[in-house]
């Protein structure tokens, strides 16, 4: 047990909206989503704004100005913070933000850190307020964009195409993943999608970039999220249901020496580190909250996390009940595919916040029976000739650190 003095003491999550499509939904600014998320998270932990001594911010988008965390701290009304940190790992940065913050508590620098992620990719007039955060001066500008690569949709299409060429079709199994998560979303009042879909509707949805179709793509929403970390001393004075971090691991830029595969992710290395720290293995998880910008990315992760051999992820999905009450519950709130993806800032918070809710027994109509321990991941940052390159795994457990 490495993180023995830190717990997650609160979470917060705003409603989701795409105001350009549903005009009855209000449009809030990015700062307002941060504020709403902060307010809910602090209320959940029973702490006042003035009682927080650390702030962590997931970089919301490529347009984010430098010194943004300090500007945000002032906007939200924090004073004299002892620790401010920011992550810049693209969509998967919630887990690294939480684990960085936990290190600051563990080392005694602060007693509490509020980690926030928010994004406003949908604007009522502009349609899309944010763009996928590509490097404005690098390989993407020189050697990718001139050929009309269409962001992550096209990137993961390349990965899925190559994978299926080597290992066979996955469409029916990805449909199973999506339909299951849609059902979970209908049980989550804060999810964007509230209607189920059938496997046929998934498979016949609009083609975007072969073999990626519309329901393979994450749904961009405006929203904010928060996770409050506290020292066990502080949390002991609060009326909270604590969740502890049993282990975590990160891995960046796998396969840097030329691209070997398009589907190799490096989450295998991150998982090895997390399992090693926790002294646990994949068979000991009560649920998985896997970063899900595309169903194929979940399949890659199931293989690299140790649930199936390479190329056998589809078989694993076919044989496993992934529903909230099933063999291995997957993305029990609906995941980003169905809850919504709040830009690169809010993206992976979906996984972390849902994991905490499940461990506190607050899953309502989607509660995993007897959930004591679960695995969360974050994945982000597509690079030249690879799919995603910033990987993180966290293993969370109900209760105080052992």
């Amino acid at each position, binding site marked *: 047990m490495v993180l023995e003095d830190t717990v997650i003491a609160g979470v917060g999550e705003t409603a989701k909206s795409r105001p350009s499509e549903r005009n009855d939904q209000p449009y809030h600014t990015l700062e307002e989503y941060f504020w709403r998320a902060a307010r809910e998270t602090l209320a959940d932990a029973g702490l006042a704004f003035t009682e927080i001594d650390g702030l962590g911010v997931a970089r919301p988008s490529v347009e984010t100005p430098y010194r943004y965390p300090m500007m945000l701290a002032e906007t939200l009304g924090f004073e004299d913070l002892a620790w401010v940190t920011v992550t810049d790992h693209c969509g998967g940065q919630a887990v690294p933000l939480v684990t960085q913050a936990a290190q600051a508590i563990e080392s005694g620098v602060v007693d509490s850190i509020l980690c926030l992620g928010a994004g406003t990719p949908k604007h009522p007039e502009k349609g899309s307020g944010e*763009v*996928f955060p590509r490097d404005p*001066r690098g*390989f993407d*500008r*020189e*050697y*990718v*964009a*001139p*050929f*009309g*690569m*269409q*962001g992550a*949709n*096209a990137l993961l*299409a*390349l*990965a899925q*195409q*190559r994978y299926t*060429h080597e290992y066979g079709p996955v469409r029916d199994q990805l449909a199973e993943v999506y339909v299951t998560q849609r059902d979970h979303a209908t049980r989550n009042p804060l999810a964007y999608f509230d209607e189920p879909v059938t496997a046929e509707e998934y498979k016949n949805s*609009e*083609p*975007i*970039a*072969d*073999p*990626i179709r519309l329901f393979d793509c994450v749904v961009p929403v405006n929203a904010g999220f928060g996770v409050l970390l506290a020292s066990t001393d502080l949390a002991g004075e609060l009326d909270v249901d604590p969740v502890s971090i049993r282990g975590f691991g990160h891995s960046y830029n796998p396969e*840097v*020496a*030329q*691209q070997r595969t*398009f589907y190799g992710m490096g989450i295998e290395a991150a998982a090895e580190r997390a399992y090693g720290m926790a002294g646990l293995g994949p068979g000991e998880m009560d649920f998985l909250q896997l970063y899900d910008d595309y169903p194929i990315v979940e399949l890659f992760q199931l293989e690299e996390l140790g649930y199936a051999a390479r190329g056998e992820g589809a078989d694993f999905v076919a044989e496993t009940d992934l529903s909230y009450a099933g063999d291995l519950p997957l993305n029990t709130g609906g995941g980003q595919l169905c809850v919504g993806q709040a830009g690169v800032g809010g993206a992976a918070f979906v996984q972390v916040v849902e994991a905490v809710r499940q461990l506190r027994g607050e899953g309502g109509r989607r509660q995993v029976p007897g959930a004591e321990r679960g695995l969360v991941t974050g994945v982000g940052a597509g690079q*030249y*000739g690879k799919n995603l390159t910033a990987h993180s795994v966290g293993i969370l457990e109900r209760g105080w650190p052992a």
Partner: protein
Amino acid sequence: MTADRPLPDRDATVDAQFWAAASEGRLLVQECPDCENRQFFPREWCHFCGSEAVEWVESEGSGHVHTYTVIRRATELPAFAEDVPYVVAYVELDEGVRVCSNVVGCAPAAVEIGLPVEVAFDRVTEDLALPKFRPSEEE
């Protein structure tokens, strides 16, 4: 027609050399004389061993499709909407590196992984040509 499309910014030295050659109909990759690895995209150093001695090698321009997608909707770069459906591919050159490009000169449905291709330069402005690929005439 291509005015609002992203084009390479050729100010950076190493990129300027690549694009100047491409615009003369030559496709360059980099080779490290110290460790004998080849790399793409171009950089001022070898990303395998860190050597500064990287050299340009002219590619024969032939290879095969490593993976590809048919773009059906221009979700991020709307200037390409008039081109759909079009193919974005990573082509593995015979020199051993993978290059992001388009497969042109055939229907998208004719593209498959392993398809032999050869370079076909597409002049997009007076002084710029993009290296694209078409199915090879000889297999």
